């Protein structure tokens, strides 16, 4: 189209004056979302400020941290959350462990979500070989024993947090991709997508501007659920020698090392478990609120 739009059509329309209230502002206005934000802030602050918040070294095995028989101590005035099987202060370990677990729960999980969403959306939208190839690749990745891959990577690389994050991302995107794929293939058949095609919207535009927003609820659900699973998965991987090695603490590790003791020393499982739960729930609260805020049909909800 070359002819310029005629002036008659551009008779200046009244410009809307009302600014769009920021997502952030609407978020903090919700009580539950605010609670979520507060929890996340506390966790992050705890991780960052750990050295100033506790007088103990996370790895110091204290003599008075164990009974004569070698049992850990329950919470008391000295060790607020008790000690672990090596006589270390549990609170300190949970605070320091947050560093690892936050990276895994947020970064690794986030990357997995990103890859999964991308693959799922692209595969679900494009008919023909691209979609088919992507999904078969996903199937392959899913069918392939992740644990084995982890063990091999452990053998090849120096164990480190970033390797673990990579492995988790590599392993976890698959499920997201599958779910997103199914949903996208249904969305792609909706009429408004046809309408987008007729105005010449490019595939990326349709995918990211029109299909993605509809997937948001699913993405939020998977993202928040992924937090707990990845944090726990990290422990399994550490156990296999990939990832943080003892004595470095992570929430998953603390649980994993002590889970057989949950009757003898319940605090060793309960507190780190509660930390994971709190983090996941906090993100869920935020996600839920976000989902409402970003969903126009929910406008007017009190």
């Amino acid at each position, binding site marked *: 189209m070359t002819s310029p739009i005629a002036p008659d*059509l551009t008779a200046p329309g009244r410009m*809307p004056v009302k600014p*769009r209230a920021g997502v952030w502002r609407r978020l903090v206005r919700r009580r539950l979302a605010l609670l979520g934000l507060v929890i996340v802030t506390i966790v992050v602050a705890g991780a960052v400020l750990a050295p100033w918040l506790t007088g103990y070294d996370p790895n110091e095995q204290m003599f008075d941290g164990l009974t004569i028989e070698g049992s850990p101590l329950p919470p008391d005035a000295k060790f607020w959350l008790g000690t672990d099987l090596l006589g270390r202060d549990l609170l300190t370990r949970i605070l320091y462990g947050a560093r690892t677990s936050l990276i895994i729960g947020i970064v690794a999980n986030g990357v997995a979500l990103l890859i999964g969403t991308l693959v799922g959306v692209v595969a679900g939208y494009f008919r023909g070989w691209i979609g088919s190839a992507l999904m078969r690749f996903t199937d392959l990745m899913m069918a392939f024993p992740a644990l084995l891959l982890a063990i091999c990577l452990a053998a090849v690389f120096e164990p480190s947090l970033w390797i673990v994050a990579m492995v988790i991302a590599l392993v976890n995107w698959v499920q997201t991709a599958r779910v997103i794929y199914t949903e996208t293939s249904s969305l792609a058949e909706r*009429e*408004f997508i*046809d*309408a987008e*095609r*007729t105005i010449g919207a490019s595939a990326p535009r349709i995918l990211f501007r029109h299909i993605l927003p509809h997937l948001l609820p699913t993405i939020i659900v998977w993202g928040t659920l992924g937090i707990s699973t990845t944090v726990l998965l990290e422990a399994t991987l550490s156990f296999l020698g990939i990832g943080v090695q003892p004595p470095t603490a992570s929430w998953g590790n603390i649980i994993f090392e002590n889970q057989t003791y949950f009757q003898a020393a319940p605090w060793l499982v309960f507190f780190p478990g509660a930390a994971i739960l709190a983090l996941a729930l906090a993100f869920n609260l935020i996600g839920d609120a976000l989902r409402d805020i970003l969903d126009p049909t929910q406008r007017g909800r009190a």
Partner: protein
Amino acid sequence: MTAGAGKKRTGAAAPVTAGPVLDIAGLSVSVRGEDGEREVVSDLSLTLARGETLCIAGESGSGKSMTALAIMQLLPQPAAHISAGRIRLGDTDLADLDDRQMRRIRGDRIAMIFQEPMTSLNPVLSIGRQLTESIEAHTSLSQSEARQRAIEALKAVRISEAESRLKQFPHELSGGMRQRVMIAMALALEPDVLIADEPTTALDVTVQGEVLELLRDLQRQHGTSVILITHDMGVVAEMADRVIIMRHGRMVEEGKTADIFARPQADYTRELLAAVPRIGSGVGRQKSRDAEAATPANVAEVRDLHVRFDLHGGFFGRVNRRVHAVEGVSFSIAPNETLALVGESGCGKSTIAKALAGLVPYSGDIVIGGRNLSGLGRDERKAVRRDVQMIFQDPYASLDPRMRVGDLVAEPLLIHGIASKDERSQRVAALFERVGLSADQMELYPHEFSGGQRQRVCIARALALRPKLIIADESVSALDVSVQARVLDLLKELQREFGVAYLFISHDMAVVENISDRVAVMYLGQIVEMGTRDQLFSNPRHPYTRRLIEAVPVADPGKRRSRFARLDQEIPSSTRKIGETPARLVLSDVGGGHLVAAGS
């Protein structure tokens, strides 16, 4: 359900009390928006007597649908709620009922037909299922009896192959067929009160006539009271006992049909009546452009177009039947020309539109701007496609519900890199005003609009790119007459200025006559007659064309037809067994380019 059957008897006893079936007093409906509450229905009072037909007409967005939903207690959650007033059905105040009691009333005593056919049917359930379940819910019929009743209901709304349609899914039906399924669903239960929100907008005139007839039958036999929401003054004239005219959420006039038509009191009513298109009024509007059409550079040319849909059946889902939706259609559209495509619901009009827009696979040739689409690469095809824009039949389904409408309308401009950000929103605002929306509605989302407003958004969107060809699939049928008139003027204006061509799909013969240069009449996937508007309207040769023209309701209660001639023959269908192809019609020129199918 025996309770349902028992209630029917009470319903029959209702006239004894002689009071109105439905009594609404001081009803107000508010919606919560970003900036607080807003009343969309204000202080509305009305009564509905037994066996009466009340038409609610009025401006699009005036609160007609909201009123209907309020009666059903189905206002959109969480935004809308009844802020004042009371609704009584017989002796019961609907507001007092809990959900459970309300449930017994819905469908059984008050049924409703919704405005949007596509989104109102469950996409994952076969239409058979959706039909029979409401029958089963309210009657004590057995499964097979319910099925039988469902088939009858489908036949009643003249859906072909009713039995096998039961297995089909909503997306496999044409817009009109979906709407008829909705109607069948509501009618099957023979409710006391039927609320029909624009029930015939998507229907071609012949089916519309039959459906209206059906409503009347129902009324005669069961004393059903009907609230008919429509913008079609023809339908109002034909059906209504009383009329309510609404604007801005308020009732502006109420009265007997004959009185309203003869002596409208409110200015708005007069305006509305004046805007009603009438057959014959379009003659002489413009000169026929036969001479111009001879220019070689057609905007679009369609040659021998075929579109078929495979239907799956059997255990392995093998293809066993095929819908011959479009069978060898050829036509061309010159710049500056409007070709109207008319025909019965399900005859393949939308499918042709979709083929042109590249949304369904086809065989044959589509040439746009001199370039044959099938020979082009992806990018080129996209470039060519830009010149073809489409307005879909179902406005709600074709707007991304998560985008603000302002952004939706701006999107084509953005995609094609036209205009800067500021300029864009100015243009969008201008477009909004042109289609009768206000600029601050740009900030709203599709679900916050009335059906007609949504359609205007779609029109604005199609206009944004100023294409060479606009395919308008029932684009103005959902609009009230005044807006419709404005939009039609806009379309014409654009055509004059930029030489836009239209493929105008409509069932409204009056509108067609008003806007089109040439008209093609389709029947079962094929064109049976094609010629200039004058040729067609003044000299319809094919019997089907004649029927179409006769079926148009006239906006004059005085000329009410006593009874619309119902067709008794088998309802035709374009579904065939594999290997069977429908006979090809041969068009012959009866003079001046007026093509008519031979043998008729």
